[in-house]
C-alpha cells in the first residue's frame, strides 16, 4: 500500500505504508543512531513526534522482549528507507512492521530519508502527517497549518499511579530515590536500580510535600517529551525540592531544573537525536560520546541569573549539556547516561548522584 508524508512546507514524499494504516500527525524529527530503533520507538520522549531514522536499514534484528524503554511504541509515526522484511536475531519475538501495526503506529518506508533529513536540517523540525489515504493530499497541507503539537504530552506518558522498584545491586548501599516521571525510559530506572537505589516512581504532577513525605535520599527528574515550559506543575514541584534533597535530572528533567531555578529554554532548530554526540566535561576536559534525544536546550544567557553553572558542553555546537548548582547537591545533564540506545560510558553519573545522596545523608544526620 502506498503512503505519503506531507510536510508543513507543502512538500510531499511518497513511499509505502508499513505498520498501521491511517493518518498520523506529529513533529518530524530525525535520529542518526545506526542501531537501537526499538529503544527509540518505545522512548516516551518521542511522544508527539514522527521519527525519521537516517540509517537506511531498519528492523534488521526484529523486535525483542527485553529492549523496550516503555510498554509500547510511543512515536507518533516512523519513517524509514527500508523496513526489514526478513529480520534475524536470536532474541527476536516479532518484526518491526507487525509491532507498529499492533500498536497503531503509522509507518512509511521507501523514503529518501537522507533527503528528508537535509530538509529538516535546513528548515528545522517541521510538522507533518503520514497518511495512507492518498486522495486530497493538498487538503492535508492546508490542514497542517492549523494543527499544532499537543501541549499535554508529558501527562500522556507519565505514570498515573505511584509505584516502587527494588534495588538490584547487593554491593551498594541502598538509597531511596523518588523519581518524577515525565515519561521515563526503562533504562534509567534500571541503571538506578543497579546503582543500588530503591525507587518510588511518582506521577509528573506530584506536589513537593508528597515527595518529601516519602523521605527520599534524593529526587530524580526524568526525561520526557515536549516543551519544558508546558510542564508548569513539575517546575513548581522542583522549586520546592531544591535545597531539600539532592537532585539529579536528565534531559527534560535537566531543562525543568533550569527553569525552576530561573533559567530559560529555547527550541533548537532540529535538536540532537542519536548516539554520537560529543560532550565535554569542562572540569576534566574529558569528552564522552553520548546518547541524546532533545529538541529544547537551556539558553546560555539565562543562567547568569541563576545559581547554576555550566559543567558540560556539546563539542559540535557548544550548547549546554550539563549544569550544577553552585551550593547545593543539585545537577543535571541534557544527554542520556543510561544509554539504551547509545553508548554507556556516562553511567558513572548515577554513582555521582549516589555519592551526593550519601554525603547529604551524612550531613543531615549530623
Amino acid at each position, binding site marked *: 500500500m502506498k503512503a505519503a508524508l506531507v510536510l508543513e512546507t507543502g512538500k510531499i514524499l511518497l513511499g509505502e505504508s508499513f505498520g498501521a494504516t491511517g493518518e498520523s500527525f506529529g513533529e518530524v524529527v530525525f535520529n542518526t543512531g545506526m542501531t537501537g530503533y526499538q529503544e527509540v520507538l518505545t522512548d516516551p520522549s518521542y511522544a508527539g513526534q514522527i521519527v525519521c531514522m537516517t540509517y537506511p*536499514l531498519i528492523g534488521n534484528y526484529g523486535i525483542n522482549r527485553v529492549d523496550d524503554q516503555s510498554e509500547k511504541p510511543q512515536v507518533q509515526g516512523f519513517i524509514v528507507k527500508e523496513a526489514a522484511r526478513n529480520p534475524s536475531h536470536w*532474541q527476536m519475538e516479532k518484526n518491526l512492521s507487525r509491532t507498529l501495526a499492533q500498536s497503531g503506529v503509522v509507518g512509511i518506508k521507501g523514503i*529518501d530519508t537522507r533527503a528528508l533529513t537535509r530538509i529538516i536540517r535546513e528548515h528545522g523540525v517541521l510538522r507533518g502527517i503520514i497518511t495512507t489515504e492518498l486522495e486530497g493530499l493538498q487538503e492535508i497541507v492546508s490542514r497542517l497549518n492549523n494543527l499544532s503539537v499537543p501541549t499535554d504530552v508529558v501527562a500522556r506518558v507519565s505514570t498515573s499511579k505511584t509505584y516502587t522498584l527494588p534495588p538490584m545491586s547487593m554491593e551498594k548501599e541502598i538509597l531511596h530515590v523518588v523519581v518524577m516521571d515525565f515519561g521515563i525510559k526503562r533504562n534509567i530506572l534500571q541503571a538506578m536500580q543497579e546503582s543500588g537505589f530503591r525507587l518510588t516512581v511518582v506521577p509528573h504532577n506530584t506536589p513537593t510535600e508528597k515527595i518529601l513525605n516519602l523521605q527520599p535520599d534524593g529526587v530524580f527528574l526524568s526525561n520526557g517529551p515536549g516543551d519544558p515550559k508546558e510542564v508548569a506543575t513539575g517546575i513548581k514541584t522542583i522549586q520546592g525540592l531544591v535545597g531539600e534533597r539532592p537532585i539529579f535530572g536528565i534531559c527534560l528533567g535537566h531543562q525543568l531544573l533550569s527553569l525552576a531555578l530561573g533559567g530559560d529554554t529555547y527550541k533548537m532548530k532540529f535538536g540532537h537525536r542519536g548516539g554520537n554526540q560529543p560532550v565535554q566535561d569542562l572540569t576534566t576536559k574529558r569528552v564522552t560520546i553520548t546518547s541524546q534525544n532533545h529538541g529544547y536546550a537551556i539558553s546560555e544567557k539565562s543562567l547568569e541569573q541563576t545559581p547554576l553553572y555550566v559543567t558540560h558542553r556539546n563539542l559540535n555546537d557548544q550548547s549546554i549539556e550539563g549544569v550544577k548548582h553552585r551550593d547545593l547537591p543539585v545537577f543535571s545533564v541534557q544527554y542520556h547516561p543510561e544509554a539504551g540506545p547509545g553508548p554507556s560510558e556516562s553511567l558513572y553519573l548515577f554513582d555521582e548522584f549516589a555519592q551526593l545522596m550519601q554525603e547529604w545523608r551524612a550531613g543531615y544526620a549530623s
Partner: protein
Amino acid sequence: MPLNPAWKKVLVIGSGPIVIGQAAEFDYAGTQACRALREVGLEVVLVNSNPATIMTDVQTADITYIEPLLPEVLERIISKEHPDALLPTLGGQTGLNLAMELERKGILERYGVDLIGCNSETIYKAEDRDAFKETMVSLREPVAESVIVNSLEEGEAFARKQGFPLIVRPAYTLGGTGGGIVKTSKQLEEILQKGLQASPIGQCLLERSVAGWKEIEYEVMRDAADNCITICNMENIDPVGIHTGDSIVVAPSQTLTDVEYQMLRASSLKIIRALGVNGGCNVQFALNPVSREYVVIEVNPRVSRSSALASKATGYPIAKMAALLSVGYTLPELTNPVTGHTSACFEPALDYVVVKFPRWPFDKFPAADHRLGTQMKATGEVMAMERTLEAALLKATRSLEVGTVGLRIKASGGWTEMEIEDKLTSADHERFFAIPEAFRRDWTILEVQMLTQIDPFYLYKIKELVLLEQRLQNEPLTTELLSLAKVLGFSDLAIAKLTGRSEETVRAMRMDSGIIPVYKTVDTCAAEFASSTPYYYSSYEEEDEGKISNGSKVVVLGSGPIRIGQGIEFDYCSVHALSALQEAGVEAIMINNNPETVSTDFDIADKLYFEPLTIEDVLHVLNKEKADGVLVQFGGQTAINLAGRLKLAGVQVLGTPVDAIDMAEDRERFAELLCRLDIPQSEGRSVTSVSQAKKVAEELEFPMIVRPSYVIGGRAMQVVENLDQLEDYLRRAIHLSPEHPILVDRYLDGKEVEVDAVSDGETTVIAGIMEHIERAGVHSGDSLAVYPPQSLTPSEIDQIQDFTCRLAEGVGIKGLINIQFVVVRGKVYVLEVNPRASRTVPILSKVTGIPLVNLAVQVSLGKTLKEMGYTHGLAPEVPFVVVKAPVFSFEKLTKVETSLGPEMKSTGEVMGMDTQFGHALAKAFAASRIPLPEDGNILVSVAEKDRPEAITLARQLAQLGFGVKGTGDTAKALALCGVEVEVVNESSEALQEAVRQREFSFILSTSTQGAPERTGYLLRRLAAEHGVPCFSSMDTAKAVVRALQEIRSNTVPQVLSLQEYLEI
C-alpha cells in the same frame, strides 16, 4: 594538549612492499600521516622500500629514504638524521616489528628517539599472545581458551584436554601466515608444524575455535588525554573461520542489537585504554550468534587494512588523526576535516551501507589452493556504498572485474550440486556466488545457513535478489520492474542478460523512463551537519546532492582493486594525474572503488566518486558532470579497457586517441605499423584453432611464447618448448577466452629492457631505460631491473631511443607509453607496447625527477613538451644506480608453482638505491626480504640446459666460502667439472626435513618447463613455505653472487635520502 614541543623531527616507517596481508592501505595511511605532520610544522623523515608509493615521493616527506626496512639500516638513518621521535603505527606489522627490534637493540635509547603512537609495551601486550591473554584477563575481557605452544608436543597435549576444532595462530606474522583451523590430530600436526616455523619466534597460539560465530570489528581511537571514540564497526558476512581480509565485510554491523553493539563498543574502548594506544586501534570480536557471549579475537594497536576501510566507509580520516594524536594533539582540539566545522571527537554516523569484497589472485594461480581460512589470500579489495545492502553487494561484485554479471560468474551455472555444497562448506573464493546459485536451485535458507553459518539476514537478501532475477526472466520488463532492479543494484548488463536484451537497449529504456542514479554525499554525520567534502556515491534514490560546477573539469579513471599485474603503481599515477589537473587549473574528478588507496582519500581529488569502474557507472558520472574529458591512461588496463566504449558513447577521451590505443593493442595493426616503420619485432601469429597452431609451429621455431590477446600482467602466458606443450596450452586457453585469438610469438632468448616515455606526437621524452636482469621469458613484473642500464652498448641504446621515438609518434601517443624490448646480439626487437602508464613509471619519475604523469596530463590537455622545457630523446642518465626487485607472497598461496615465467606472480616490489650497482642490488634483495646469506650451503638443482651456467656459479659460491650441495644429475654434472659437491637425498621426506632444518642457506632450482619434475616443484614450495631464499632463474642467481661479492668487497653502502640522490 597541543603539539609536544619536544618533537621537531619525526621518523615515519612505511610498510615496505605490497604483499598479501599488507597492501596499499599503508601507502594511504603513511601519506596522510606525513602530510598531517608537516602541516603542523614538523619535519618528517620517511623510510620505505616501496618505490611505487605516493609516500615515497619527494613531495610527501621532507626527507625520504628508499631503503630496506631493516634495523641496521634504520640505525644508520637515525644516526644521520637524529629524529626526536619514531612513529611506527602507520607502517603495518612491518612498522611495529621494526620498532620493537630497534627498541630491543637499544638503538632508540642510544639516539634519544621517543617511540610515539604506541610504546613498546603496548606493542608487546597486543602482539605477544601470552601478554595479550594476560591483559585481556586482567580487564575481564573474555578470550577463547588457549595455550601458547613452542612445540608440537605441547600442542597435542592441549588438544587432548580441549578437544577439536582448534585454531592455530603463529605469533608475529602477517595476515595470519601459517595458521589454520584444525579438526583432527593429523591436521594439527601438519599446520602447527608450519605455524611454528612461520613465526619469527617459533611460537603459536592454539585456541578453542569459535568458527561460525559472528565476526565483528571496531575501529577505535584514543588520545593522550584518554578521550576515546569509535570510528566504525564492521560485520563480516563470512563468520569467524575466514580471515577478515578474505571476508566480505559490511559496515556498519547489520545484525547486532544496540545492546550488543554497545557491549562490544565498550569492550573496545576498555581495551584501547588499557593498551594506552595514542592513535588508532582495531579490535576484532567473535560474537556467539545465539547469546551475548563474545570473545576478543585480536587487537592491532595501529592503523590497518580495516582502518583504511573504516576511513573510506565513514569519511573519517583515521590515519591523519592518528598521526596528529601521536604528536600530542587531543581529539577535542581537532576539527572534523570532512564537515570542516564540527568536532573530530565524535563517532561517525552512516546513512548508507558499505560492502567490502576481497579480490583473490586465483585467476593467475589456477593450481593454488583456493580454500579460504585463517590465512589471508586476497591481494586487494573493493568497496561499494549504496542505500540498500543488495545494491552495495552488486556494486562490489561488479567492481571486482572478475566477469560477474549480477550474482553470476561464468562458472556458476555449470556447478553440480556437489560442487555448490562443497563451496558453501569449505569456503573458496567463489562461495559467495554459490549462495545465489543454491537458491536458484531451490535450496532453502536453512540449508545454506547450515552449510555456511552465514546469518539468515544476509541469506534472505541474496534470496530476494534471486527472486528478482526470476522476475526479470519471466515477466515483461515494465518501468516499475526495471526501476526495482536498479534500486537493488542490478547493472544494465545483468538486466540485459536476464531479459534477453542488449545492454544498450536496457540503458535506452532507462534513459527514456528517467531511471538514473543520484549522488549522495559521504559526510561522516548522516546529513546532521552540512559538509564541505565532495565525496559521493551513486544511488537510485530521490535527491541528488551533487553540485556541478561550470568550469573545465576532467575525470580520471582509477585502477580498481589491487591484483597481481595491476598494483599500487597505477594508483600512484592516478594521484599524480589529479594533482597535474589541479595544477593546470582544471577540476580533477576521481572515479575508483579501491578503499586502500591514496586516490580515494577524501582530500586528494576535487571530487571523488566511489563507484565501480564499469562503462555504465562511469558514464553516469560523466553525464552528470558533463566533464570536458576523461583520462584513461593512468588506471591500468581497467581504465584503458573502457576507452573504446567511452568514445562510442561520445565521451572525449583525452591523451592518446582511442584508435591509437587500439593500434598498440591489436596485434595485426601493430605488426603492420612496425613493418611500416621498419622496426623489428619478434615474429608472431595469432591462431584460433589447434590446426592453425600446428602450422604456425612449423613456421616459427620453438621455444615460443603463447598468450591470449588483451591481457593484464601476462595472465595465462606461457613459454612452450614443443608441439605437445603448445597443444596442451591451446586446449586450456581456448576454454579461457573463446572470443579472442591466441597469440603465438617466437621466444627470443635475449636481454629484456623497457622504457617509459611521454610524447606529444612531436617530442618524445624518454625518462630512462630499465634493463632486466633476468633474460626474456620472465615477466617484466617479476624481473629484477636496473636503471641506468649496466650492460647495453651505445648502439643498442641508440636503437632503443630511435624505436621509442618513432613508435610513440607512429602510434600517435599523446601521453605515456611503455615499451618492452628484447636485445639479441646487438639487435633490438619490440616485444610489446603499452599506450598507458606502467609499473615502472613511479620508479623512473622518482629517480630521474622527470614528472612523467604530470607531463602526460599537460600533453593531454594540449600543451607541448617543448613549451614545458623538455627536449626530444633519452634523458641524461642519473649518477647512481637503482635496482627494482619483485616481492612474492608465495608463503600465503599454498601449492603455487614459484618458478618464474612469462606469467606474473609477484604482488609487490622494492627498490635498492646506491652509487654502486652491487650495493643497490644487495639493498634490493635485502628490501625484498631475501636476506643474502653470509655462509652455509647452497643447494643446486637445475634443468639440464642451465647446468653449464650453474657450474660457473657454484665455483664462485665455493670461492665465497659456501658449501655446495646438489640433487642427482646436477650434482653429477658439477662433480664432473671438478666442483666439490655433496649429493642430497632426493626423497620428499628427506628434502622437507633438510629445508626445515635450514640445511640450505639458499636454493637454486630452475624449472625444466613442463616436464614432470616433482623434485623441483617440491623444493621451491618448501623454500617458499619455510622462508628459504630460492631462485628459479640463473640470472637472478648470478645477480645474487654479484651482490654477495659486493658485500664482501669492504665498500660501505650509502645512506642517502632520495632528495640527496637527486642533488648528486
